[in-house]
């Protein structure tokens, strides 16, 4: 789950990392009072769970409390990335000498937290890593053993920082690593971590994300932040497709289906799943030049109605021309049941299954029975002897008018 910036700041502060004397306001009047207490120029920042605040006008600078109130009023009515703000953060405008970057992110490949540091903060760290790799220090550490200050020092020094700055930054990064471990974070980022004119350091912005499954364990912290159990913190509002799939899933206890389509606008609908198969297959479709209309997960032996419901929701999406039904072999889902479901979806929508289902590749339980059904409806299918990658290629190739030409084109390196 993702935290708002004002909550992230509280977490950072509680971990012993210096922050500015900020305040959180939900009305323009509250913003004015906070600005008065600060007693100088302020920054008014929208509290939304989406990026691009600056570009959208969600961050404004104010010289007086009245100006702060005016900006707060405007920002509180400003929708950013489909979200209305929860409030505004009123922050003193800091006199910054230099901006740094510090974060801990869960590295799923190494299965360890990764500490990252750069002396080029305030900008996109990916860009810094690409264009100025010598300015980025990084180091994995154990999520089980206590974190040592020495590990933080190594990472900071790797970015070329020495002397007093190295000494002052070390405990800050060590505390950030501790926060990551203690609070079950998947991301704990401070950007910028600013050095002020007096040489001290403060976190000017913080971005924290916690493992969803850790919510019960972190109940006390969440309660302290005023986060209710039903505050699920979706990073976007569910689309009509996602709502529809959620309703189909909730209506029947058998099996599990999920469907996501935010950011997907393609013509190839995906009914996919099993043991990491969804991610692999989505990537495989894209790597062959295909344009997925959605992401989905299907498994755990759904009913025919559930498989049908997912397939119908996918096919009813604007722009979807065909369906690829694919799973990895790590599945106990019955092939014949899914075959019935997706064919039924086509028939109920008045579509010809053989023209609509680009490929069916679900190896596993009851596959002989499933293949009989697919043959009966003339659907292109394959078993485990065909890889997921090849199945995805065939699905993408099916969009070409001339199948022979499509095969040849898809086979080209």
């Amino acid at each position, binding site marked *: 789950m993702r935290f708002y910036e004002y909550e992230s700041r509280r977490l950072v502060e509680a971990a012993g990392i210096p922050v500015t004397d900020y305040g959180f306001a939900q009305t323009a009047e509250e913003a004015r009072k906070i600005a008065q207490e600060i007693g100088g120029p302020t920054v008014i920042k929208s509290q939304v769970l989406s990026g691009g605040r600056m570009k959208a006008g969600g961050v404004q600078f104010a010289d007086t409390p009245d100006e702060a109130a005016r900006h707060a009023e405007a920002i509180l009515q400003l929708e950013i990335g489909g979200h209305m703000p929860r409030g505004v953060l009123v922050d003193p405008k800091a006199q910054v000498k230099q901006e740094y970057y510090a974060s801990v992110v869960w590295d799923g490949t190494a299965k360890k937290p990764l500490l990252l540091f750069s002396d080029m903060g305030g900008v996109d760290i990916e860009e810094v890593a690409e264009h100025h790799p010598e300015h980025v220090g990084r180091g994995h550490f154990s999520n089980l053993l206590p974190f040592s200050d020495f590990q933080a020092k190594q990472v900071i020094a790797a970015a070329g920082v020495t002397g007093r700055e190295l000494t002052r930054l070390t405990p800050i990064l060590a505390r950030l690593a501790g926060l990551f471990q203690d609070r079950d974070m998947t991301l704990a980022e401070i950007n910028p971590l600013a050095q002020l004119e007096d040489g001290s350091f403060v976190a000017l912005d913080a971005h924290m994300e916690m493992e969803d499954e850790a919510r019960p364990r972190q109940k006390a912290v969440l309660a302290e932040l005023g986060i209710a159990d039903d505050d699920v913190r979706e990073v976007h509002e569910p689309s009509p497709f996602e709502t529809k799939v959620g309703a189909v899933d909730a209506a029947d206890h058998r099996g599990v289906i999920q469907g996501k389509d935010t950011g997907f606008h393609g013509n190839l609908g995906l009914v996919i799943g099993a043991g990491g198969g969804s991610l692999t297959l989505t990537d495989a479709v894209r790597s062959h030049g295909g344009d997925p209309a959605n992401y989905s997960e299907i498994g755990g032996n759904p*009913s025919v*109605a559930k498989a049908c419901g997912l397939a119908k929701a996918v096919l009813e999406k604007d722009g979807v021309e065909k369906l690829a039904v694919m799973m990895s072999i790590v599945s106990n889902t019955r092939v014949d049941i899914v075959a*019935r479901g997706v064919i*039924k979806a086509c028939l109920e929508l008045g579509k010809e299954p053989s023209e609509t289902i680009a490929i069916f590749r679900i190896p596993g339980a009851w596959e002989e*029975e499933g293949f*009989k*059904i697919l043959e*009966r*409806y003339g659907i292109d299918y394959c078993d485990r002897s065909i890889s997921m990658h090849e199945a995805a290629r065939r699905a993408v190739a099916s969009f070409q008018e001339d199948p022979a030409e499509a095969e040849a084109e898809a086979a080209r390196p």
Partner: protein
Amino acid sequence: MAGIFIDVEVSDDVRGDCELAKKLQEACPVDIYAAAQEGVEVVEQNLDECILCGLCVETAPPGGVRVLKLYDGGAALER
């Protein structure tokens, strides 16, 4: 109306047997059979959910219930 993929045939003897209707209702994991006042009622909207477990065929006397796979030339589960 039969399902798209599955149909069941229930003999007249079985169809009118209220006791057997209750057993079929209990046996079928996907609710294809309901025990009605006059005996066995086939819930047609559930026919395509049939998982071919054969429990209904085993519950009924020989020849009492046949499960037809419409996609397989009408091949039947029966005893």
